[in-house]
């Protein structure tokens, strides 16, 4: 059974985290998962921002993307958990509230669109877990990452709130851990596994950056104490926040965690035997050298 998705690129991955986009495309190609493109999408319209200005019109703007996926008659695939959260939220609210759906469709009608339920929304992680499945991933591992300690960092919108995303247990998520174990790496248990990078609220300049650095320190400190080789995220926004946090901690407090932060597809790609350069690992903020040398001793 071959899988195919309509790719929803989002802004963080396609503008700020190109290395991750390179990696994700390479890994999906190697897994024979098809990706269709559309240049008709608009922004997922971050709820914390656009829906703050106008709740109903914000929902209509987000739902416009669901209408496009409906026209393609394909499941959507987001690169970013924030897009996944926004689109899943819109779908949940419209599917469960007839009044809201009527209002939103009243607005969408002005641009010749109508929201109909039934669009399937996946994120890179949920697609690998739900659709590709752990069982099939196991067959693709060529270079098991034995001896590597990888700390899963779930991020929020992949599984919260559970009523919108329906992906994992809301208090004790395990699916990213399971995906990490497939690669042969050890999945590290640590206190901050389900903490938050606050990337999605990071638009208040200094106070947001300060709060993000405090959280990044808690997360990195907790992971480091377990002898972690790399932090594995499900979301490009978490990568960006944890990397920028490290840069700030180094310059302000002289604390250098030197912790490689990467997306799960990076780890998966390495375990499938793909080259670091093919996975865009040479264009990251983190220095991946110590990790790569531990995986493939020079």
């Amino acid at each position, binding site marked *: 059974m071959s899988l195919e998705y309509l790719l929803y690129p989002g802004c963080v991955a396609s*503008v700020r985290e*190109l290395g991750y*986009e*390179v990696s994700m495309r390479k890994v999906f190609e190697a897994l024979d998962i098809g990706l269709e493109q559309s240049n008709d999408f608009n922004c997922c319209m971050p709820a914390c*921002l656009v829906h703050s200005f106008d709740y109903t019109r914000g929902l209509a703007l987000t739902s416009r993307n669901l209408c496009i996926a409906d026209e393609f008659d394909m499941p959507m695939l987001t690169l970013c958990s924030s897009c996944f959260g926004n689109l899943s939220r819109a779908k949940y609210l419209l599917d469960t509230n007839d009044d809201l759906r009527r209002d939103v469709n009243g607005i969408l009608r002005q641009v010749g*669109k109508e929201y109909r339920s039934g669009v399937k929304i996946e994120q890179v992680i949920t697609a690998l877990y739900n659709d590709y499945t752990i069982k099939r991933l196991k067959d693709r591992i060529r270079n098991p990452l034995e001896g590597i300690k990888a700390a899963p960092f779930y991020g929020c919108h992949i599984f919260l709130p559970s009523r919108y995303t329906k992906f994992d247990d809301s208090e004790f998520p395990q699916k990213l851990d399971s995906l990490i174990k497939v690669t042969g790496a050890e999945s590290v248990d640590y206190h901050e596994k389900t903490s938050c990078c606050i990337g999605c609220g990071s638009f208040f300049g200094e106070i947001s950056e300060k709060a993000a650095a405090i*959280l990044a320190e808690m997360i990195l400190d907790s992971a480091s104490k377990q002898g972690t080789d790399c932090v594995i995220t499900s979301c490009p926004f978490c990568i960006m926040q944890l990397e920028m946090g490290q840069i700030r901690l180094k310059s302000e407090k002289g604390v250098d965690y030197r912790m490689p932060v990467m997306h799960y597809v990076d780890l998966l790609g390495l375990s499938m035997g793909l080259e670091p350069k093919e996975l865009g690992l040479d264009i990251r903020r983190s220095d991946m050298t110590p990790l790569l040398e531990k995986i493939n001793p020079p």
Partner: protein
Amino acid sequence: MVTSRELLGRLIDEKKLTYCENCGMCTASCPLARAIPETYNPRILLQRVIFDLDELIKSEEFWLCAWCYKCTERCPQGIQPTEIFLLTRNLAVERGYIPANPRAIMQEIVRSGRSIPVFEDFDDWREDYGLPPIGPTISEEALEEQRKIMGEEFLRRLRT
């Protein structure tokens, strides 16, 4: 079209706000309350939505919520602080209280269709890494539809 106030009642059931028992589960779960407790406390914000709404919407702190939804997931009374804060921001915007940073990002979304600006020759950079072009803005058609969906009132609020 319904007002934000009516939406608050329709989506959340405004009565339920008074079900808050002040247990503090929201604050205990909140990443921002951990990082900057002197500035951000969702339990107190929720109390102010009930008792001090008119003053609350003039402040900037309730805009800091990063909508991680941990409070909403855990509230033993089923109150949804995350969605309530979104609706509260709607009330603030209706009355003209829009902090500078959210306004600037919204203006970028109106201009380019993206929350992160893309410089003119960004696609050259993407091409170097073998990635398909995304354009300096979303497509003209998508921008036009976006403007229509936002509507005059929405765009006017951003300009003033």
